[in-house]
Structure formats: C-alpha cells, structure tokens
C-alpha cells in the first residue's frame, strides 16, 4: 500500500529513530513557543492567534504520533502526518513573520536535516518536495494578493536594540544547534557501528588465517604418508597402489594450494603479509616453479615450456613471486584443454623484469578482463564443462603483485588463449 521507503519506517529497527524524532518534536515545540513569546513580548512582532494555534497543532500531532508508537497502532499514518504537519506549520510561522522575507526561513533546513538523518532518501526527497510546494504556494498567494502581506519582525527602535539582539541570538542558537546535535549524534552512532564492523572483519580474517594455518598440518600428514607408502618403507607396494598414492598426493597438493591461497589472502587482508626483498635469480625461480607445478598438469597432456635463460636477477620477495607464478600456471593449466601448451617466460626489461604465463586455453573476453582479478569471481566458461574452483587464485595474484609493487596485465580473447604479464620494478 505504501512505497517501500515509507513502509520501512514502520520496521522495528526504525522505532528508536521515530521515538527520537518525537522527543525532538516536543523540544522544538517548546523552543518555538519560547521564541514566539519572546518575539511578541519584546514587541518585535505583533501578537496573532496564529502563533499559539501553530504551536498547539504541532503539540497535538506530535502527541498523536507518540501515542501511535505506544499503542503500536497507525504508526506510519500518525508519524507521517506529524512530519507533514511540521512543514505546513513552519510555512505558517514563516508566513506570519513576513513570508518570503521571514527570518524563519532556515527552519526548513532544520526539518530537512532531521528528516534526512532519521529516515531515508525517499522520505527526505518527499519532505523536500513538500517544503518547496508549500513555500511556492505561500509566495504565489502572497504575490497575487490572495493572502495579505505580513510584517517582518523588527526592533521598535528601528535599529538592532538589545531585545532584538537577544531574540536573534537565541534563534540562531536554535537554528544552528538542532542540526548540529542531530548530525553529531547520528555520526557518533555510525562511527561506533563502523568500528564494530572493522573489528568484526579483523576478527574474521584473523580466525580464517589461523584456521587455514591449522588445516595445513593434516594435509602434510596425508602427503607425507602417501609418499612413505609409495616408497615401500611400509612394505612392498604394487604399481596400482603407487598410482593411488600419487593420486592421494595430488589431491592433497591441490587442497594445500587452495588453503595457501586462502591463507595468503587473509594475511594480506589483515596486513600480516610481509615483503622480504632479496636478490632473486629469475631463471632459477622459474625453474623451481615449473618443477613444483608439474603435478597440476596431472594426467592432462599439456606441454610446460620454460623460457628464462638470461633473465638476470631482481630484488623482490621470492616466496610471494613464486606464489604468483604458481597461481598463474595453475590457472593456465586449468583452462587449457588437452594437448595445449603453457609457457612460463621471464626477461629483463629496461626498468625491471617481466614475467609471463601464456596458454593456449579457452581465453577471456576483453570486457571481462577487469573482473577476473576480483575474489570469488570465476568467469563462467559458457559451457557445461564445469571448471571447478572458487576464483581465488587470480585475486590473490593481483594482491601479491600489488604488494610487490608491480603491475599485472592480461592479453586474451575468447578462443585465442591468454597471456598474463607481470611487470616488476627494479
């Protein structure tokens, strides 16, 4: 029946805001009453019955809104009426103090700021529109003479006397103070929520880091024992058993790869991944990576080619860079069909080093190049081959390359294979 942005104001979670709004409504009624009494008492503005009437109506609508919250009946309707009445009553106060020339014009700002902080964008825009319509209607009616002109409050002495000064200062304090009070209390609330969120995020990453670390130990156990069984230490083994052991080890290794990715990612998130730079001979590193990833090729007939004979050395973190290359090769191996080729290349450039991993795989459409580096986003290959994985590898690659101060670029198109290029500064 109501648009969602209005309906949501009745939710239990928004009740404290409504209550806050009603309490401040009573405070504002008092302030307005005091201001009107001062203005009339100091003879700055002639008395009119409109003043107590305006204050009285607000008192009634505010009380009704309060009562609706208490009895939980017609909460939306009475609170909506209360807010809408605010604007009409303010327009009335503005009219009786000079219309478009009235010094009370800024009270609209109070209303808008309070509504903005206590409700949502939709309600705020609605009230904003109401303010404009009310003000425009009043001005047009006055301009066309339908509504008689009203005097602006002035000091009887003709200049700014002490009485005028007192009222002006009290009024200024009111206009400035109310939005300040609301803004700062809401900001404090938001700040506290933000802190709690950051804390929770940290605790979650911390937990993830320690749990993944704990996961590594049993995986080592699986790997080590399958090695020992295959080596015949525990007795004679058949070829079939050896194959099974190799498969056990491969499964453990892929699990370990995933756990390592998660661990590195969470460590990077909590800022615990340190970069320890040392001179790294690139050819050596690439050879080591190639040797450590052969298991990934598994039973797939893929050729792994290494081109890094005269790449020289670069000052970087060997472990992190190896992790980058391992993940890139794992990605290439995963998306390259049987009989394909994966090339790992390292070379010096004028201002650093370039490492490339090239494959003859399914490729990635250019418009999706940016999103593949986001965590947990694996491009749906568009067929039912079902490439497994959670899409963490490349996100981690990007993160690690950033940590190493390098850049990563991708040259790829659907059906044309992919080349990931990591450029590292000297």
């Amino acid at each position, binding site marked *: 029946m109501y648009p969602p942005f209005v309906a949501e104001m009745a939710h239990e979670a928004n009740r404290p805001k409504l209550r806050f709004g009603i309490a401040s409504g009573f405070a504002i009624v008092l302030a307005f009453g005091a201001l009107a009494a001062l203005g009339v008492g100091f003879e700055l503005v002639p008395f009119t019955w409109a003043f107590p009437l305006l204050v009285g109506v607000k008192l009634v609508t505010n009380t009704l809104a309060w009562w609706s919250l208490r009895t939980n009946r017609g909460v939306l309707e009475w609170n909506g009426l209360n807010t809408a009445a605010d604007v009409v009553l303010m327009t009335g106060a503005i009219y009786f103090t000079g219309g478009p020339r009235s010094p009370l014009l800024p009270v609209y700002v109070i209303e808008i700021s309070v509504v903005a902080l206590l409700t949502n964008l939709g309600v705020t825009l609605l009230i904003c529109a109401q303010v404009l319509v009310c003000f425009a209607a009043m001005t047009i009616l006055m301009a066309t003479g339908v509504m008689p002109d009203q005097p602006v409050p002035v000091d009887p002495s003709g200049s700014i006397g002490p009485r005028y000064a007192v009222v002006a200062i009290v009024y200024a304090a009111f206009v400035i103070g109310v939005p300040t009070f609301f803004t700062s209390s809401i900001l404090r609330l938001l700040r506290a929520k933000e802190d709690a969120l950051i804390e929770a995020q940290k605790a979650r990453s911390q937990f993830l880091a320690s749990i993944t670390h704990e996961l590594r130990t*049993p995986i080592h156990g699986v790997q080590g024992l399958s090695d*020992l069984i295959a080596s015949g230490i525990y007795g004679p083994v058949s070829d079939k058993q050896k194959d099974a052991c190799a498969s056990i080890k491969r499964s453990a290794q892929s699990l370990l790869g995933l756990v390592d990715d998660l661990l590195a990612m969470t460590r990077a998130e909590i800022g615990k*991944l340190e970069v320890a730079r040392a001179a790294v001979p690139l050819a050596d590193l690439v050879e080591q990576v190639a040797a450590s990833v052969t298991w990934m090729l598994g039973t797939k007939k893929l050729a792994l080619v290494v081109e890094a004979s005269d790449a020289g050395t670069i000052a970087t973190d060997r472990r992190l860079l190896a992790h980058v290359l391992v993940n890139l090769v794992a990605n290439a191996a995963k998306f390259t069909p049987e009989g394909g080729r994966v090339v790992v290349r390292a070379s010096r450039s004028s201002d650093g080093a370039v490492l490339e991993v090239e494959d003859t795989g399914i490729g990635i459409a250019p418009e999706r190049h940016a999103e593949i580096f986001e965590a947990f986003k694996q491009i749906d290959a568009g067929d039912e081959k079902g490439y497994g994985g959670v899409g963490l590898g490349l996100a981690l690659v990007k993160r690690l390359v950033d940590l190493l101060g390098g850049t990563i670029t991708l040259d790829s198109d659907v059906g044309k294979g992919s080349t990931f290029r990591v450029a590292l500064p000297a």
Partner: protein
Amino acid sequence: MKRRVAAARMYRGSVVKKILVVEDDPINAQILSDFLSANDYATSVASSGTEGIERFKADRPDLMLVDVQLPRKNGFEVCWEIKRSPEGAQLPILLMSAVYTDREHANRYSHDSLRADGYLTKPFDLADLLQRVRDLLHEA
C-alpha cells in the same frame, strides 16, 4: 641397493647417526621418524620445546630436526638454548616451519653462532630433507 648394503655395514660398525625430531604433530613426527629410520638413522621424537631440550641432554643426537611452532618453547628458543650450551655449540640443527610464518624472520636476527644450520619450509620433499641431513652430517 648398494646404499642399503653400505648402511648395513655401518650398523655393524655401530656408527649409526642419531637424529632427534622435535615436532608436536604426532603424524608428522611419525612420518619423519619412519622416513629417517628407513634411511638408517636412529631417531627419537620429542613433542615440545622443553622436552626437546631434555632429550637433547639425555640422547646426545648427531643432528636435530626442530619444528618452529612448538608448545612451550618454540623452535628458535630451542635452537638458541642448545647452541648456547658448550655441548650443543657444534650440533647441526634444521628448523622446519609452515610457509608464511612471521617468526621465520626471527632466525635472521639472532647471532651467527646461534642460528639454525638450515631452514625447511613445510611441506618439504622428503628427498630434500634427506639431502640436507646428509650434507650437515658430511655424508656422501
């Protein structure tokens, strides 16, 4: 095959080298001790830092293989304590740890003479381990 024969001869000559493994995870400790025993080393296992130091004093091993993350005393502390003692100053110690440990750096900051003789990042290849052990024991 040849190596086995040679090792058997060593057994008879009772020159079997003793290796003390300090590792709190029982499965990993079992893998290491089974593997080293199969390669003709006499192995013993301790499951905490303090127990490692006690076993070192009692067993007098020829080499120690120490995990970094240990209950009570960590691997670095075990290494420093042993290397500081007159009996342990010459003892080769290999530290093992999982990747991405912050403590890895700690070994770098210690004095040369108190540093471990090698560092193995888990998971390591058992063949690599054997090579490192042989190198440290000056075996062919």
